[in-house]
């Protein structure tokens, strides 16, 4: 049996839940067709999550590519189809990228080893300064901190996921609130073991009375827990939290059936700190959003 998964017209972290709601009840080896024909827009999270989704399936899924030429072109510019061709059976016309997309700070990039993180850091430094300082009016100090945060989030895949994942970075206009403020978004998605299983693999791990994906996220993100005994571990995410807080940004991490968010002080986002009982999806899906500075 083959099931068609309908991808919403606007694909970002929240609307991706609609995709997962359709997939979660299906056996892993069931053939699926991921239908993006009517998708008009996808965030870096949407694109990287679609790749992680394909990795999570036993049976190679089919991807109906977007019908709109500008969408297809953009996904090509983001290098999405280059990677998707290895994970999906692509159906439909893929339009090749014609020009460099200036809003793209980092195309969808595979992360599976430490060298990949070096590659990402080297590539993004060349573009980040202009995008963050000139386009988002952020202080020049942010460039290095932004890259540090990106490095740490990517390392989580190498250190904890147990399999490869994806990263992409882009600037775009945030339309949810405040009538179109620009943001820069980092998305890092993997279909690995996830936060809960990672902590469970710690030597001497003892399960608490309440133990679930939400608690595993709280322990890791808010309290710096790590599966390693080394007391120096867990600083990466703590540093990312500080970075996000200093720049009025938002950090959200989904793993298993829960999603935790470190929310901005400003009023540009109205998410909840913790969502539980979501549809199950393996691994970890991280999104960092830093808004334009408005003077």
């Amino acid at each position, binding site marked *: 049996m083959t099931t068609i998964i309908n991808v919403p017209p606007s694909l970002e972290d929240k609307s991706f839940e609609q995709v997962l709601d359709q997939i979660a009840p299906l056996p892993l080896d069931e053939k699926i067709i991921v239908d993006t024909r009517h998708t008009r827009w996808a965030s870096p999270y949407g694109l990287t999550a679609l790749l992680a989704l394909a990795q999570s399936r036993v049976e190679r899924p089919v991807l109906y590519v977007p019908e709109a030429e500008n969408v297809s072109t953009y996904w090509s510019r983001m290098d999405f189809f280059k990677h998707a061709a290895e994970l999906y059976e692509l159906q439909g016309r893929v339009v090749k990228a014609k020009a460099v997309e200036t809003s793209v700070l980092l195309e969808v990039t595979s992360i599976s080893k430490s060298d990949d993180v*070096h590659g990402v850091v*080297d590539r993004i*430094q060349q573009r980040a300064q202009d995008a963050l300082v000139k386009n988002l009016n952020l202080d020049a100090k942010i460039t*290095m901190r932004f890259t*540090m945060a990106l490095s740490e989030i990517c*390392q989580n895949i190498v250190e904890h996921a147990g399999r490869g994942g994806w990263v992409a970075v882009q600037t775009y206009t945030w339309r949810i609130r405040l009538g179109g403020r620009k943001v820069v978004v980092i998305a890092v998605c993997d279909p690995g073991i996830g936060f809960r299983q990672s902590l469970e693999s710690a030597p001497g791990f003892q399960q608490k009375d309440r133990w679930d994906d939400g608690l595993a996220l709280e322990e890791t993100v808010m309290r710096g827990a790590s599966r390693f005994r080394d007391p*120096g571990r867990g*600083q*990466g995410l703590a*540093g990312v939290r500080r970075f996000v807080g200093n720049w009025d940004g938002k950090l959200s991490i989904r793993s298993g059936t829960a999603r935790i968010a470190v929310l901005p002080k400003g009023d540009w986002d109205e998410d909840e700190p913790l969502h539980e009982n979501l549809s199950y999806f393996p691994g970890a899906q991280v999104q960092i959003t830093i808004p334009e500075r408005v003077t």
Partner: protein
Amino acid sequence: MINHIDVSSMLRKSVCELYSNLVTRPTGAAVRGEIEQELDRIGDRALTVIDFSHVGLLDFSCADEIVAKLLLQYVSVDSPRREVYFVFRGISESHMDAIEAVLERHNLALVTQQADGMSHLIGIVNVDERKAWDTISRLGAGACDDVASAVGLSADAAERMLDTLWRRRLVIRYDDGYVAVGSVTIPPQATRLDA
């Protein structure tokens, strides 16, 4: 003897000729391993400049591996690896974010030297420790009595304080006195161990 270790050279030597950023834990561990090999070549008692001037980015994982784990081996209360003192040079504002975070995590402190030659103590030190270090630094060198009168401590308390700072490798002990790490004149091109 004052030695100089260029961290970016250690990075190129140990990991990859093309890298200029200190990111990822394996990279940090490899660079620290290279630094330790250099330190093994010097005597049992030495002052070493760890120079970050040519390092682009330093992330938290790398700072933990290079700075914190290096210091931890030499400030161990019971059995320090050897009597090696460090001055950290060329630390940028963004390096400082990562370094301060790992010092806090491990309850460590270190001495940085800025381009103008001024030395500063960063990390976890209490008020009295900082006063004592500042006093020794200002005096250039001093004995327990000098610190006791400057800080307003009893002679015994000053002695304990200075012993603590020595164990933390923030002051150098000699004969009957102490010198603050970083107040020793360090030429920009101290003996290079990374050439």
